[in-house]
């Protein structure tokens, strides 16, 4: 097709022209195997990676389909080497399979003897494989199932796990037909949530990628209902654990007695247990003291919230949980530590993915207006900054006193709207809190106090909150429609995704969310901001840069 919407580059990136009449069809066709890298206004960039191609293989797509899609939608001749590489890479998945043998138990089967010979010869598989059953089959020590999968992926021969799962202890869980928090109005899963649950269940284990605010908890609940077994849910922190609990009570037939919390504060093991990563990774005298939780019950399902934050010890523990169904939930598969391959081999391939913009277009998350406000530092501060030690520069720039005035202006502009001010440095936050007369939540705030403030914020009792990075993950502030970021942790894209997520929850009245970042001009603050904005733009959110001096008139047009 000479006029296709897709341009296939030799470096394995795919450029999709959004305005093309066939763009939507092409997007749907390439979504199973290409990772969306960035989605600015005209040309979206996807990338072909081995993991992406294997994800597609795991989802039942073969190389021929992939090649045909590329050929069908490509505007120019597709590089030959790339097609060969796609076919070659995809053919590597599934040559080795983990399966249950009626006599020998867990075995590694090969459809290609040479590959089996190659991996058996590798030093990395030493101790993971047992005796050879026949030419194509070798016994695997059941305890090494996860470790072996990791090793095979590193060797470039990812194994297909067909060994199945233990059924787990039965425990009936159903989705409740009505939503008690909305006066018992009936509700059901959104179509994409249902697709995500189906995709996961069909694949056995794996990861569901949904944007913040798209209702990942509900996907978790749906999976639990489908499984109908005891479930272990691993979350990032205690606040998040409480929110899971509330959401499960609201969305399912589970009662308070059936849900246990396993955290620093409480150690209940119930049919559905929510544990924090932190408690699991606590070490005492060099031993993980809470490992027994993993075997406390015959879990039928393990849910990992925020997979992209999964700490390394959890990976190691997960390696031993390979016989149980695993569901990973995340907003992005991008890990800043580059351990995407471990997520793939230990939790499973990606089972469902929906781009933010699509879900936004369906009205499930709020549209956002992103603005960067640039503040020119006064002469004195600039001199101070210019002569500061490199390690102090960011702090100096991020905490520029001029920011207070701008935040004040912005807050005033959105008076009455639920507004979050997010920052990194505690003294700056304290000062800001005083300045705009809002309570401050930091790591030092007790869980009880946090809950109280969040509840008050939710009910509209207070409309302004100043939060530190503790609020980055898994707090649910449904009606926050304005976020003002004054400092961040060195331009982390992931953090930006989370913060943006704070205001992305759909608003009852469909209002536009506002996301402001206040930065100091000509400093490292600006450089970090550029990095974070890149993420916004790549996600398809247009953003504007305005000078602090022009703030009054610039925001005038956009505030409705």
């Amino acid at each position, binding site marked *: 097709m000479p006029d296709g919407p897709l341009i296939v580059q030799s470096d394995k990136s795919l450029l999709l022209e959004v305005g093309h009449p066939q763009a939507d069809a092409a997007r749907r066709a390439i979504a199973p195997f290409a990772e969306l890298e960035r989605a600015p206004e*005209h040309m979206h960039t996807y990338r072909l990676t081995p993991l992406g191609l294997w994800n597609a293989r795991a989802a039942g797509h073969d190389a021929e389909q992939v090649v045909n899609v590329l050929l069908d939608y490509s505007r120019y001749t597709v590089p030959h080497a790339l097609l060969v590489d796609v076919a070659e890479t995809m053919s590597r998945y599934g040559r080795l399979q983990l399966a249950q043998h009626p006599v020998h138990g867990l075995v590694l089967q090969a459809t290609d003897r040479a590959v089996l010979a190659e991996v058996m010869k590798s030093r990395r598989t030493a101790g993971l494989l047992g005796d050879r059953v026949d030419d194509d089959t070798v016994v695997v020590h059941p305890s090494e199932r996860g470790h072996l999968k990791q090793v095979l992926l590193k060797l470039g021969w990812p194994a297909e796990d067909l060994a199945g799962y233990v059924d787990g202890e039965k425990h009936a869980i159903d989705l409740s037909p009505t939503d008690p928090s909305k006066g018992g109005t009936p509700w059901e899963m959104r179509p994409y949530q249902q697709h995500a649950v189906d995709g996961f269940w069909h694949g056995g284990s794996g990861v569901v990628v949904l944007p913040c605010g798209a209702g990942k908890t509900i996907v978790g609940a749906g999976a639990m209902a489908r499984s109908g077994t005891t479930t272990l849910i691993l979350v990032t922190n205690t606040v998040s654990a409480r929110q899971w609990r509330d959401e499960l009570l609201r969305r399912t037939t589970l009662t308070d007695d059936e849900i246990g919390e396993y955290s620093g504060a409480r150690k209940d093991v119930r049919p559905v247990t929510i544990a924090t990563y932190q408690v699991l990774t606590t070490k005492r005298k060099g031993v993980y003291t809470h490992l027994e939780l993993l075997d406390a019950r015959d879990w039928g399902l393990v849910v990992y919230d925020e997979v992209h934050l999964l700490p390394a010890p959890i990976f190691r523990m997960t390696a031993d949980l390979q016989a149980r169904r695993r569901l990973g939930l995340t907003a992005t598969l991008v890990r800043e530590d580059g351990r995407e391959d471990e997520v793939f081999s230990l939790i499973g391939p990606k089972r469902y993915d929906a781009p933010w913009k699509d879900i936004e277009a369906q009205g499930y998350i709020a549209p956002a207006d992103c603005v960067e406000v640039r503040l020119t530092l006064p002469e004195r501060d600039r001199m101070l900054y210019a002569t500061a030690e490199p390690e102090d520069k960011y702090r100096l720039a991020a905490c520029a006193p001029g920011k207070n005035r701008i935040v004040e202006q912005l807050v005033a502009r959105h008076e009455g709207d639920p507004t979050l001010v997010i920052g990194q440095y505690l003294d700056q936050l304290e000062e800001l809190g005083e300045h705009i007369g809002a309570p401050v939540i930091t790591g030092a705030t007790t869980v009880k106090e946090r809950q109280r403030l969040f509840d008050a914020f939710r009910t509209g009792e207070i409309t302004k909150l100043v939060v530190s990075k503790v609020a980055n993950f898994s707090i649910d502030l449904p009606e926050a429609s304005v976020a003002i970021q004054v400092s961040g942790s060195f331009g982390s894209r992931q953090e930006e995704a989370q913060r943006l997520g704070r205001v992305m929850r759909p608003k009852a009245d469909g209002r536009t969310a506002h996301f402001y970042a206040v930065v100091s001009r000509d400093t490292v603050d600006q450089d970090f901001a550029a990095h974070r904005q890149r993420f916004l*733009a790549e996600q398809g959110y247009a953003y504007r840069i305005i000078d602090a001096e022009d703030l009054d008139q610039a925001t005038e047009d956009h505030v409705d």
Partner: protein
Amino acid sequence: MRMATFSDWVRARSDEQLVALLDHRPDLASPSPATLLSLAARATSRASLHRAASTLDAAHLVVLESVAVLGGAGTTVTADRLVEATAPDDPAPGHAADVLAVLADLESLALVWSPDGTALRVAPGVDEIQDAYPAGLGPPDRSPERPATAPQEDGPVDADDVEDVLGALDDAPPGARSILAALMWGPPVGRVPSTAGSPTAVPTRWLVRHGLVRHADAQHILLPRHVGLALRGGRTHRGLPRPPEPPAEQRARPTVDAEAVRSAQEVVRFVTEVLLDWQEVPPHALKAGGLGVRELRRLAQRLETDQTTTAFVVELAAMAGLVADDGDDPASYSPTLDADDWLEADVAQRWAALASAWLPSARAPWLVGSRDDKGVLRNALDPELHRSWAPRLRGEVLGVLRSAPLAPLSAHDVLAVLRWRTPRSVPPVETLAAILHEAHLLGLTGAGALAPTGDVLADVPAQTVPDAGAVTALGERLDALLPEAVDDLLLQGDLTGVVPGRPSPTLEALVAESADVESRGAALTVRFSPASVTRALDAGRTGEELLAELAAHSPTPVPQPLEYLVRDAARRHGQVRVGAAASYVRVEDPALLAGIVDDPRLHALGMFRVAPTVLVAAAPIGQVLAALRERGVAPAMEGPDGQIVHADRRTPRVRVTGRRARRLVHAARPVAAVPPEVRRERLAGLVADLRRSTPPDRPVPDPGAEDVGGTPDQGTAADRSTGPRAGRSGDHVGAHGAGTTEPVVALGMLREAAADGREVWLEMVGAHGVPQRRRVRPLRVDAGRLRAVDVARESELTVAVHRIVAVEHIAPEGPAAPPEVSGSVPPADPPHDPKEPPHA
């Protein structure tokens, strides 16, 4: 009448035939031979025969081998017999015609000749360039050294008896047949069973006793030639080899074109980058010549490719004469004057210049990174890094690719074809892979198959530099393949831009200057950053101009973040200013300074104010001091580090001059193409000269013998060194009227005599420097030595050829040698000792 000699046959060739011979074997015509006799002699020299054989394909070699086996050494063979001897198991109808055509070729090459017009034999010396066991057959049994006058008991059976003995094989112990079958198609040597109890010991003994095999030495048995032939049913080969089939896999034409274009654009970009890089900082050449490993690695990083490719790109730039050693001490590599023209040309012409320089170049870039015999690493641009056969091989590879249109050929596929085309000179597969890779990098192939661009290059005559027309044709062909240029730049909010196709030259220049490339291929993705925008501002644009240019190429408005970025960069650009001045003047009192700057007498100093109390001057410090003193102020000189030197970052260009530089361009400059008609005309003139200088009947001593000394034969120089004596002997032999002093002719006569088993008079200088005249029967002329049998003394002698003064035919008063001896030559490489007692 004695049998016609090879020289007689050469003399009897028609003019057209001689022109064809000289055309196909150019080494015979250069330098021009003086007479037809010396032409005949030269045609039988070992070097020339090797050269001729190396151009033969497998089928020709098989037929030649067959003639050598059946029609060597004084015997002849008919064409019909050769057709039979080379027939496959189920002969195809065209077989006879094929063999006859091949024979005609061989005859026109003077490798096969016919003493009487019908029967055929090989030219003298062809036997010597055959393998040890030609056609896998053992040596003929009766050698001249040991005439089989009295066959011993258990000795070899006569040729006539072979049939009978083979008939008796039914009675042979088991295993005898399989031993014969194993030796039948060669190699004809087997190991003698080490123990008597071995299952093959008995049949081996039986075979030896019946004369079907004989002992080569204590450990080996040998299948004699006539037995082998009998076993094969008189055949020498199982048919003529067929050319290998190209792989059935085919690439689509658009794929091949697109891939080739992609590579071509890439290689042009690479070379351009190298030139741009080196014009800023020319890298130093190593002492022994060549580019250091570190520089190569740095360059590879800049090009974002591997070092092998980088080495090729650098070599390619040198082949095209775009970079050269500037000849300074220490030397460094800089772009040449040609590079400026090249950089201005469009992609297609730039590429054509590279491709046409590559084909005839003797450089061997693939050796970069390997180690030589002494273990020294070979560097890119190393002056020693050339191989004289590289241009020929490049041409051959292109030819092979062309013979299989659209088929992706691996190095092994090419090797198979070359093995058929020129089995005598087959390059290593690694070299073929390297040349294929070069063709791929240059975009002569696409996805492994020959692209239209490569097709044009394959048209260039072998080992010649493509002329201007060919270069233009190359460029035009690429131009036709290039996708249409796109003038649109899609600007996006994340500060990236996408050119959805091949950028037009103006657009390419714009993005190259103002953005960083993120991804190349069918489209171009770029990212704008403060650094890249600043680069554009450095190049002389203002922020507004840049925005206007971007807007002109963008179908949508410039996104606000990008606009902000450009304005922001423009705002900061020039906040710090740097200028050049030769001296400065500082004055504490601004009023005094104002007086100085406005003084018309000081205008010549080029002073201007950079701050209220500081002036800079274009004049050097000495002049400023003198001028100010003259004006009456009392200036004081400040420390020596106030001087700013204006440094032009561009280094001066070098001219490609001198041998060293030329060697980089074409290490072995091939001859310019001569149209075939012109060449043949020249050869016809040569043949006419030869005819004139050669008397119809017998050779005369050639006064121009020295002129022919350039033939690559042994002993020539040595002969010349014994000049005076040679001259005297020449007179002496001249008196006899039949001898010759021309070394090449003498050797030719010896070879002819050896092939015919005739005797000659040999004038030679003995070990004590005394001239001798002996009647000998030459056996072999090889490696600068003559082996011959002295008939009178019944002894064998070996003479270094430079000691041979003259050779003379013996008057044909009768048969030159006993008939049973005449048909024999010594085995090419006798592995056996004829005196060894037969196996007990």
